């Protein structure tokens, strides 16, 4: 065999797999959203989706959740990564504990926070023992959308900050120590070092982390379903409802196109906003 063919041969299984089960299905889902089963072009599925009373709420909830959760996670992950970079003893154990949620699914995370927020849960017990309330409160009922929202934000921050942390810690490891030594010599404060050295040089990792996290935030599903039930529709839960309960794959596909569109749009915006010129790369 010709040696120049070898790398292509090695890539073949992965490339084949991704083409058949990643590229092709994405064409299919777009097809399903725009064409009827008979193969005629139509925007009927989109108007059905837009006309449905839950659509606006689902879109709004998804976007607001992302807007609240992602900035908190970014700040927290940056803080944690900075803390850990200054540590010598106990660094490994702190990182292990902080990355535990990485292995926990959104469904399990939802159940974990359900144990805290449900009516006979730990939060109620805690408040009762302190004497702040006389009887258990309903935090997750259909009348308390705000507390459901807070619970979901807490669960998401708890569960998915780790993924950003890992990327940022890896990125901080790539910044040469000499820059900080130099800053020390010139008497720059810790905060100044963070804003003038760490943040600008961390841009590529920050970009990766943000893209990944924002896309995952648009996919929020099981946490919302466990904590909010049907009280708080989001895009993914609506897709599930259309696909499963209403048995209309076309409208589900139209929803999927919405998720895809906002994901791609956000990816492009983040890529542009945090671009690094070639000369400025480490």
């Amino acid at each position, binding site marked *: 065999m010709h040696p120049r063919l070898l790398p292509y041969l090695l890539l073949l299984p992965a490339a084949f797999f991704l083409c058949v089960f990643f590229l092709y299905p994405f064409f299919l889902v777009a097809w399903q959203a725009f064409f009827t089963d008979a193969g005629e072009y139509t925007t009927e599925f989109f108007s059905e989706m837009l006309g449905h009373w839950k659509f606006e709420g689902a879109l709004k909830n998804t976007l607001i959740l992302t807007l609240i959760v992602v900035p908190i996670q970014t700040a927290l992950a940056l803080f944690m990564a900075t803390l850990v970079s200054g540590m010598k003893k106990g660094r490994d154990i702190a990182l292990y504990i902080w990355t535990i949620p990485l292995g926990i699914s959104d469904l399990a995370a939802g159940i974990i926070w359900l144990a805290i927020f449900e009516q006979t849960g730990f939060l109620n017990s805690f408040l009762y023992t302190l004497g702040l309330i006389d009887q258990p409160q309903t935090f997750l009922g259909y009348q308390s959308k705000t507390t459901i929202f807070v619970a979901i934000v807490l669960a998401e921050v708890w569960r998915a900050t780790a993924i950003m942390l890992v990327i940022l810690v890896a990125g901080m490891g790539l910044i040469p120590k000499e820059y900080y030594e130099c800053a020390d010599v010139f008497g720059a404060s810790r905060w100044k070092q963070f804003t003038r050295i760490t943040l600008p040089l961390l841009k590529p990792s920050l970009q990766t982390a943000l893209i990944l996290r924002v896309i995952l935030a648009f996919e929020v599903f099981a946490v919302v379903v466990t904590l909010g039930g049907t009280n708080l529709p989001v895009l993914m839960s609506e897709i*599930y409802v259309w696909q499963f309960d209403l048995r209309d794959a076309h409208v589900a596909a139209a929803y999927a196109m919405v998720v895809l569109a906002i994901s791609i749009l956000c990816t492009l915006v983040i890529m542009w906003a945090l671009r690094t010129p070639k000369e400025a790369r480490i």
Partner: protein
Amino acid sequence: MTPVTLLSRGAVVLLCCWVLLPIYLLIVNTFSSQADVSGFPKNLIPPMDTENVEFFMGYFGVGKALLSSLKVAAITMILSIGAGAPAGYALSRFDFRGKNLFRVFVLMTRAFPLPLLALPLAVMYIRIGLDDSVLGLAIIHTVLALPFAVLITYSLFSGIPIELEEAAWTLGCNRFQAFVKVIFPLVLPGIAASAVFAFVISWNEVFAAAVLTIENRTLPAFLLQSLGTSPLHLKFAGGAVMVVPALVFIFLVRKYLFSMWGIANR
């Protein structure tokens, strides 16, 4: 100790508690009796009652779901390493036309909401007879895990000097023998870690599993489906069963966590 280090120590401990406390509370609930789970106010020390877990394990459908979960995760592991490791090796060892294109392609998969793939695949699977099957679900989980497998193995192979391989060639090994005798033993722990990572991805995935399977539901899909109907103590036991393997897995792969984003190798 200066006030600043004291303060940051405090922050580290506080953040550790923030992560661990909710897990602890779930464990307390899991090892409480049914009456305790819905009792009020609660104890913070578990009575170590295994009635709950036993009930969950004997609950109709749980055993089967657990088995499906294991099967799907095992197939995902094999497929994603089988296809990902050769690609990782090719990326680290060869310079060829289209190399960057392939890297971008792999990275691009992360910019798409992958669970959505379940929708068109549900239709495709009915056509080719893979609907409601363990293999069909494992395939979509492989799409989720494959990019990570490629990137982790890429950084693993890049970390092994090519001189080792070259030495084996000069001593009479061909490319394949050199790989099996020299490189493979060196990367085995890393490969195992990325296999474990693929396992966790599959074990935790909810959306595609819920959309694609009816009879062969995996554990997360089963839990999701019975959320509305199952009593609280059952949910907690199910949550704990899902969390425990995750804890072990993260512990096993902790050394490799930072190379999975393809940016930690220099």
